[in-house]
């Protein structure tokens, strides 16, 4: 646990490709956000159920 905290507290490692420079923590945040967006678009949404003996159409 202490080792993990130390890694977080240290100066971040930067990755550089030409003019692109990004710190590893920022890259992780970007990848997590992008993955979440893609998963939200492709994962199937669970089918809901109506309460027993009642249907929304009954209200109208």
């Amino acid at each position: 646990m202490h080792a993990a905290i130390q890694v977080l507290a240290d100066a971040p490692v930067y990755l550089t490709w030409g003019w692109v420079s990004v710190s590893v923590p920022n890259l992780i945040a970007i990848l997590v956000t992008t993955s979440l967006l893609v998963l939200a678009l492709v994962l199937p949404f669970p089918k809901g159920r109506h309460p027993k003996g009642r249907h929304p159409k009954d209200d109208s």
Partner: protein
Amino acid sequence: MSTDTVRAHQAPPTSWIGRLRGRLERALPYEKLLPETQPAYVASWIYVFGVLTLAALAMIVLSGTVLAFEGPSWYHTSRTGLFVNSLHFWSVQLFFLFMVVHLAGKFWMAAWRGSRAKTWITGMVAFVASVGAGLSGYTLQTNFDSQWIAFEAKDGLNAVGIGAWFNVADLGQVMLVHVFFVPAVLVVIVAVHVLLVRIHGVVPPIDAAEVEARAAHHGREPGEVG
């Protein structure tokens, strides 16, 4: 309802309060304010991120209220205080994560379609106000990290000409801005944003007609999910 009351409701309004009530009743009837069903296309994970952002905001306000009442000497030293402080911090991380996914989803969906420009604009204003809330919060950590953030921000704020009245190096001012001004503005903007979503409805995806037809084919009524 008595006959007099019915007549009073049907009569044209004579004051600005009556006119305002009429406008609100027409724009936001109870069925729109608290709907029981949503269109079939809302059954997608991408539509969950708006409410997740709201849940994270509620957690931020709740934990922030506890921090405000107990004070820095409690949340910087006691174990419970450090826990609530961390809860506040991580709620903010989730708030921004969910909000950015919500924003990206709505951007690619062109969510300003169908008279929803104001909904889009209030969302964007809420995003900018959240950045202000985040900045003032980061500078309240009172550590080397917050010191660095404050002095980087100070240069930026001076450059745009507002550093004279919003001074991030003034801890007392930043504290009051963070615990009162920014949350009040943010909560009002978010409330307007949510009401606009209720008035205009959730934005349909670009292929909404196809989704609705598919839902109808599978035995569900168009315009129904749940």
